[in-house]
């Protein structure tokens, strides 16, 4: 018996939406979109079991459900809490949530080095966005920040643990994409760190995806490190025939040069399709790829500066626009400026100072 997909009504920040049973609050909010979507640093819809750790997506449930209208006593992690019929959730509209989220952001930034000026992730860093949205200008932390040594996880990936916020995304990625995960969390508490057991390299054909899932600059592409700032590069969608992955990627170009290859990401910054190491690290020539066109970049992102996705060309010809006239120059500055008048000595015009001007004035004095 085919059963129709059951839907439930959930209200988030006074916007009601019908969602299928089993949807989480965060997914329901993403269906609405816009400002009601709580930020998520550790949740990744493509990774099973992720979420619940960073606590940035905390929301207030002011009405449990139609059947049990009691509010939930604590703020809940929206990424791991399923919706109930008639549930009412407050995200933007709850001062309690705002306060808790500010606290969480402060905790996340507490030991973060804030080395954005030299960090490769800057410009596409989720923690940076979160910090702008909820952070304070100064820190109340006056002690030495926690630091770790940098580690090379094989030839392509560098781990800079000092920047890590322990979202566990890379651990889940390695667990779910590769056969044998060889990195995980060592130690506990504020000294917990992502590590391989004694500096082993990560060499699986899909391990490069950990770079894409990292919300901060803890895992970086060694082929791209310090090559360029992301906002100077132009993302274009491209594809190639690949034996082991979809081959659908985003190329980050500067001029003709391909500086970096990443998987394509959706509007929540999540990878659409995983790509293999060969596509990511070894195909760094434009000729390796079939270019589809510019990648869509949100206009709120710094990467969108100078990034033109849909250039509109005038349909009429130039002459038609000018009413039949066919001017040779767009603007005839020659007739306005005396700079180009051959009868005037350039030195007579109040132009920029030259050494002659200087010599002349000192001689007089």
């Amino acid at each position, binding site marked *: 018996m085919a059963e129709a997909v059951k839907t439930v009504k959930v209200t988030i920040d006074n916007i009601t939406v019908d969602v299928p049973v089993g949807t989480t609050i965060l997914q329901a909010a993403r269906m609405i979109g816009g400002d009601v979507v709580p930020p998520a640093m550790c949740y990744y819809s493509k990774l099973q079991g992720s979420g619940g750790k960073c606590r940035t997506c905390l929301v207030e449930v002011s009405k449990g459900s139609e059947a049990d209208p009691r509010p939930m006593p604590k703020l809940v*992690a929206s990424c791991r809490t*399923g919706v109930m019929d008639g549930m009412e959730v407050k995200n933007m509209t709850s001062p309690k949530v705002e306060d808790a989220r500010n*606290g969480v952001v402060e905790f996340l930034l*507490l030991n973060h080095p804030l080395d954005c000026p030299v960090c490769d992730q800057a410009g596409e860093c989720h923690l940076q966005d979160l910090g702008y949205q909820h952070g304070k200008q100064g820190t109340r*932390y006056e*002690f030495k920040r926690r630091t770790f040594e940098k580690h090379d996880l094989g030839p392509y990936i560098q781990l800079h643990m000092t920047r890590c916020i322990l979202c566990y995304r890379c651990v889940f990625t390695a667990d779910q994409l590769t056969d044998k995960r060889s990195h995980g969390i060592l130690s506990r508490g504020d*000294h917990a760190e992502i590590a391989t057991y004694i500096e082993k390299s990560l060499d699986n054909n899909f391990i490069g995806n950990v770079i894409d899932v990292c919300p901060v600059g803890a895992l970086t592409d060694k082929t791209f490190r310090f090559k360029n700032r992301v906002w100077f590069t132009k993302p274009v969608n491209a594809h190639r025939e690949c034996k082991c992955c979809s081959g659908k990627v985003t190329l980050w170009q500067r001029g003709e040069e391909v500086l970096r290859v990443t998987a394509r990401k959706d509007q929540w910054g999540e990878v659409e399709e995983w790509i293999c190491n060969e596509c990511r690290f070894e195909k760094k020539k434009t000729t390796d790829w079939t270019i589809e066109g510019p990648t869509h970049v949100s206009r709120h992102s710094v990467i969108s500066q100078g990034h033109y996705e849909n250039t509109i060309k005038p349909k009429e010809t130039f002459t038609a626009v000018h009413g039949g006239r066919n001017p040779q120059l767009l603007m005839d500055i020659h007739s306005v400026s005396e700079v180009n008048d051959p009868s005037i000595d350039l030195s007579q015009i109040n132009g920029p100072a030259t050494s002659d001007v200087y010599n002349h004035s000192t001689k007089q004095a």
Partner: protein
Amino acid sequence: MATKLLLAKAHVEGIRHFEVYRREGGYAAVEKALKMEPAAIVEEVKKSGLRGRGGAGFPAGMKWSFLAKPEGVPRYLVCNADESEPGTFKDRYLMEFLPHLLIEGLVVSSFALGSNRTYIYIRGEYAWIVGILEQAIAEAKQNGFLGKNILGSGFDCEIYVQRGAGAYICGEETALIESLEGKRGNPRIKPPFPAIKGLWDCPTVVNNVETLAAVVPIMNMGGEEYAKIGVGRSTGTKLISACGNINKPGVYEIDMTISVEEFIYSDEYCGGIANGKKLKACIPGGSSVPILPANLLLTTAKGEPRLMNYESLADGGFATGSMLGSGGFIVLDEDQCIVKNTLTLARFYRHESCGQCSPCREGTGWMEKILGKIESGKGAISDIDLLWDIQRKIEGNTICPLGDAAAWPVAAAIRHFRDEFEWHVNNPELCQTQNFGLAHYADPIHVPA
């Protein structure tokens, strides 16, 4: 003389061994239970009003009735013997001296819940108790009270002892389950609760050692009789492990009707404050519950004498009350420094935070550093407010209760002893050589009419 249900036979010579335990009337509960319906046993525990002895005080019968019972899926009972809360050592005593009482309770509970494989997850530091328990299990097996077809009832039950590796967080039930499965002991995100999806994704009940041991007297005397002991919703007896500046530290069994004052000062229990000093403060239920100054400890804010039970200790909420918690009763005399005491606790929670969720991972370390600063006389008044703000942002925002457990002691210390913190800030040199002393904490508090 107080009623003793658990520790009545604790001092019988050789009670650790099966023959003596059996001679003293042991395993009668198993014999009785196996003739009953499992649901009837759960009903009996419900009637007894037994509340979880691990700290949260959730009714045990209710927890058992939440256990999902899908067809063809095994169910598990896990005994939480990862007793790591500073100040709590009641389970150690119980397991060390009366291992068969726990085994008996486990067999009865396993039968009631339908668990054929039951685990005791014991704290790694209790290394010597593992041997005692394993010997007790072997003896019970030899005598047919454990293993295949117990007493011819057709019920099979095996008990395994698993040692932890020394993590406080593994006392949290979902972290315990993770650790038992052989993974890193990180608490799981709830829901789903263990009663639906616990050990190896099967329905699981996790109970404290004392809770499971208390099932034995409940079976022997009946739930209704058991509920008559104690007062209100605090039924039965509770083991209290008293320590600190008292004359007679140790594990005491109380019936929850006695007052805190009697417990501290009577010779039957703690025997008063050591060296003739005065009582300054007390942490009544293990390190994570709020500390109370003497005046609020002995009487509630309403002026009634405070009793040693769940409701009375929690009277007044966290503003003027505390919790019975796990029963780790830590007494501080007039010579103790609250700032130093709070720092010690903060250091413990920082060390034991699993590092999974950000408020606890970063907040516990931050609190410890600020407390260290204040304690060493380098603090500022603004640090006290900052500390308050940090604990407020940790509490309730974490995955598991460890965040709350780390925040509450700091919150309570500032709430009740703020002038001592301020004294530390204002007298940076004096605080290194002297203690703040009693101040007004020992005075009876003024109750507005």
